[in-house]
C-alpha cells in the first residue's frame, strides 16, 4: 500500500525555475560586481543588465511564520524570488537601484517585538558574515553545548562587523556543538566548538542489549575502551579515562556511553583557518582557547575571547590579510601576546601528526 502511486528518485527541483528573469537572461554573462554598501551588491552583465542584491542576516533556525514574512518581502519587492547563501543569509534580488532603496527601507523596518532585527542588512566584503552552526540542544543528541544561543550571543556582539566592512579581510566565524563538527568548522577564521571533558559513563545495565560491544570498542580511536564484565556477570566495557580524548565516537556508536556533563562540557575556540585559495592556501584553524564553560544563555567568556581575537586582528593585520595569515606573519607567539589569550600546554599538539607542528628552528620571538 505504501508503494501505491509512489514517486521516487525525483531529485531536487530544477534551479532554473527559481531564477528571477534578470538572472536567467544573464546566466554566465556577468562581467563584474561591486559592493555598493555593506549588504548591497550590484552585478553587471556583459549585456549591460544589472542585478542588485540586498543580503540580510538570518537565524537559520526559523519558523514557518518567519518564512512567510520572507515571502511577503520577496513578493512585494522581488517578483516573488529570494535566495539563501551558503552561510544562511537571505538575499533579495532586484533589477534597479530604486527598488533597492524601497527594499532596504522595508527590511530595516521589520523587527521582532523584542526589538531585534528580522532582516539586518550586511554580511558582505571585509567583515563578519553570518555564523554557520549546527543543532545544539535544539535537535541533537551529542552536543557539548548549545548552538543557537551561543551564535546569537556572539552575533549580537559582532553586529557592527556584520553591518560594516571595517576589517582587513573577511572573518568567518563558525560554530559546531560537538567534535563531529557538522559544518566542518575546522577551516574557519574563528571556530567555536562544543567539547566534552569527561569520559563516557557506562550504562552497564543495558549496554549489552542496546549496543554491539565489539563495535563500541573498535570505535575508540585511541583504544581506551576494553571489554569487561559487571559484578553479576553481564557483558560490558570499561574505559581508561586517562587515555580518553573525549571525541564521543563511542557514544555515536553506542547509546549506553553518554558523555554529556554540566561541569565537563564547554567550548573550545579555534582560530586562523580559511577555505579560499586566495593568496595563501586553505588552512586549518588552530586551538587557541582550550576550554571555556557553558555559561547559558549568553556565554560571556566565549564572547569576550572572540572579541579579543577580532579586535587584535582588526587593529594589527594588513589589508587583505586573513586572520590566520596575520598570525603566521607575526608568529603565533605574538598572536597570544596581542590577543591577550593564555598559551597553555593543551595547545601543543599531541595527536597523530603532532611532530609537524613543533618548532624545529631557533627562529622565534621572545
Amino acid at each position, binding site marked *: 500500500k505504501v508503494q501505491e502511486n*509512489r514517486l*521516487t*528518485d525525483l*531529485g*531536487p527541483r*530544477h*534551479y532554473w525555475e*527559481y*531564477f528571477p528573469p534578470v*538572472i536567467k537572461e544573464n*546566466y*554566465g554573462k*556577468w562581467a563584474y*560586481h*561591486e*559592493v555598493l554598501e555593506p549588504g548591497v551588491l550590484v*552585478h553587471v552583465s556583459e549585456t549591460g543588465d544589472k542585478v542588485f*542584491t540586498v543580503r540580510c542576516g*538570518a537565524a537559520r*533556525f*526559523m*519558523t*514557518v*511564520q518567519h*518564512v*512567510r514574512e520572507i515571502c511577503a518581502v520577496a513578493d512585494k519587492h522581488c517578483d516573488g524570488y*529570494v*535566495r*539563501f547563501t*551558503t552561510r544562511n543569509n537571505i538575499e533579495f534580488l532586484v533589477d534597479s537601484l530604486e527598488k533597492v532603496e524601497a527594499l532596504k527601507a522595508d527590511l530595516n523596518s521589520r523587527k*521582532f517585538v523584542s526589538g531585534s532585527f528580522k532582516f*539586518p542588512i550586511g554580511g558582505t*566584503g*571585509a567583515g563578519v558574515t553570518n555564523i554557520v552552526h*549546527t543543532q545544539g540542544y*535544539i*535537535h*541533537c*543528541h551529542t552536543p557539548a553545548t548549545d548552538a543557537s*544561543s551561543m551564535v*546569537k550571543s556572539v552575533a*549580537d556582539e559582532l*553586529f557592527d562587523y556584520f553591518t560594516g566592512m*571595517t576589517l582587513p579581510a573577511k572573518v568567518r566565524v563558525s560554530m559546531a556543538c560537538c*567534535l563531529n563538527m557538522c559544518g*566542518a568548522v575546522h577551516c574557519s577564521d574563528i571556530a567555536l566548538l562544543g567539547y566534552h571533558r569527561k569520559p563516557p559513563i557506562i550504562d552497564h545495565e543495558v549496554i549489552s542489549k542496546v549496543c554491539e560491544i565489539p563495535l563500541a570498542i573498535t570505535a575508540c580511536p585511541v583504544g581506551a575502551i576494553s571489554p569487561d564484565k559487571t559484578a553479576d556477570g553481564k557483558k560490558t566495557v570499561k574505559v581508561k579515562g586517562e587515555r580518553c580524548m573525549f571525541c*564521543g565516537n563511542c557514544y555515536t556508536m553506542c547509546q549506553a556511553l*553518554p558523555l554529556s*556533563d554540566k*561541569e565537563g*562540557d564547554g567550548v573550545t575556540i579555534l582560530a586562523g583557518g580559511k*577555505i*579560499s585559495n*586566495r593568496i*595563501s592556501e*586553505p588552512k586549518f584553524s588552530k586551538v587557541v582557547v582550550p576550554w571555556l564553560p*557553558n555559561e*547559558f*544563555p549568553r556565554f560571556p567568556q566565549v564572547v569576550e575571547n572572540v572579541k579579543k581575537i577580532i579586535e587584535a586582528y582588526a587593529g594589527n593585520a594588513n*589589508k587583505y590579510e586573513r586572520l590566520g595569515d596575520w598570525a603566521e606573519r607575526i608568529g603565533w607567539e605574538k598572536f597570544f601576546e596581542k590577543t591577550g589569550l593564555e598559551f597553555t600546554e593543551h595547545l601543543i599538539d599531541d595527536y597523530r601528526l603532532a611532530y609537524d607542528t613543533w618548532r624545529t628552528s631557533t627562529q622565534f620571538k621572545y
Partner: protein
Amino acid sequence: KYDIPDLEELENGPWPSFVADAKQAALHRSKLPADRMLIDPNGVEDMLGQLQVSFDEGETHWKHGGIVGVFGYGGGVIGRYSDLPERFPSIAHFHTVRLNQPASKFYNTDFLKSLCDLWDYRGSGMLNLHGSTGDIILLGTTTEQLEPIFFEVTHVMDQDIGGSGSNLRTPSCCIGKARCEWALYDTQEMCYEMTNYYQDELHRPAFPYKFKFKFDGCPNGCVASIARSDMSFIGTWRDDIRIDQAAVQAYINGEYAPNAGAHAGKDWGKFDIKKEVLDLCPTKCMWMEGGELKIDNAECTRCMHCIAVMPRALRPGTDTGVTILCGAKAPILDGAQMSTLIVPFMKAEPPYDNIKEFIEKVWELWMEEGRNRERLGEMIQRITLPKFIETIGLPATPQMVKAPRSNPYIFWKEEDVPGGWDRDINEYRARHKR
C-alpha cells in the same frame, strides 16, 4: 507556557532572535484552526521549554538516534525522541526531514509557501534554512507523518528528500554563473546533474559511510568544498588571465574601488597596485612594464587575489574546467582533513562522462577497500595516496603534493626490482662467510 528566562534574554540584541521568532510562531500556532495542523500545536513551546531545561542542566535532552525513515529509502530522515517525553509530550517524537534544496538555493515564494503549508500541517512549524550540508531541514515531526510528508513532497512539490546515512549526501554548489562573474564551470548544472544521475546512491545506502559532493565555481571556494566534501570540484582555468589595461589604469587612478568596494568601511589609503596586488601575489608573477600590467601566466597559481582586487580589469582565462580534490572531512577519527588534489584539470561539460567515470572509479575502490564507517579521505590515508591513484589509474604528478616525501621509505614492488625478491641464502653465503 514555561518559564524560560534564559531564552527570553536571547530576545535582546540586534541579531535576529530565534527565540522571538519561536515565540511568534507559538502564538500563531495556538491560534491556528485544528484542521490546519496534524500534530500537537504545542511543539514550539515544548521545544523552548526543553531548551531551558537543557540550559539549566547543561545537557541535551534528546535521546540517541532512533531509526525511522520512508519506505524504500535509507536516508533523508533523522529520528529524534525527547528523553523528557512526559514533561514535553508534543516533542516526544521530533524527527527531522531533509529536503533536497534546489541548486544554489534560489526559490520562488510559491515553493516556499507550499513548504510552509506542508510544515504547518504535518510538522512543528520550525525549520532550518539551511542545514550544513545544504538541505532544507524540517525540524520536528512524528513517525506517522513521515510517509504522508514524503507523499506530498513528491506528488505536490514534485521533488525529493535529501541524504543521510551511508549514502551520497545532498550535493551543494555555490551561486556560480547565476550571479558571479568568476564561475569557471556551471556549478548549478553539474550539481543538478550529479544529484539526479546518482539518485540511487543518494537514497539507498551502499557505501561504507557518508559521501559528499560540493561544487565551487572557482578557487574562492564559496561553498567550502575543500573543507567539507569527500569530492570537491573547484573551477579553474589553464590559459591566461584576461587583462583590460584601461581598467587597470582606472584602479590605479582611483576611479574604481579596489576589491569591488569590499573594504570601504575603513580608510586604507589610496590604492597602491604594487603593495596591494603585485607584492601580495603568492608567486610574484606580476609586474608593471611601460604602464601596463604583465602576468607570467605559467607561474600563476590562480589564487584569484589580483582578480578579486581588480574585478573590472582582470578576468580568469576562458579555457576552463575543474580541479578535483578528494577526502575532506570533520575530525572524527584521525583529525580533520582537507581534500587532496587528485586531478589538476579536467573539462567539465555536460554530460560529464569523463567526470562520472572518475567518480565511479573512486567509488568502486572505496566500496571494495573502505572499511565500515571509513570516509574516503581516511581510506586514502590508510591505503596511501600512491596506491589510491594507482588503483584508479592516474599517473603521479607533482601537482598532487606540496613537496616530495622527505623520508626515504619507498615501498618498492617486486616487479620494480630486477631479479625479484627471492634470493638464495646459500648463494649469498657462498659470497659472504658467516
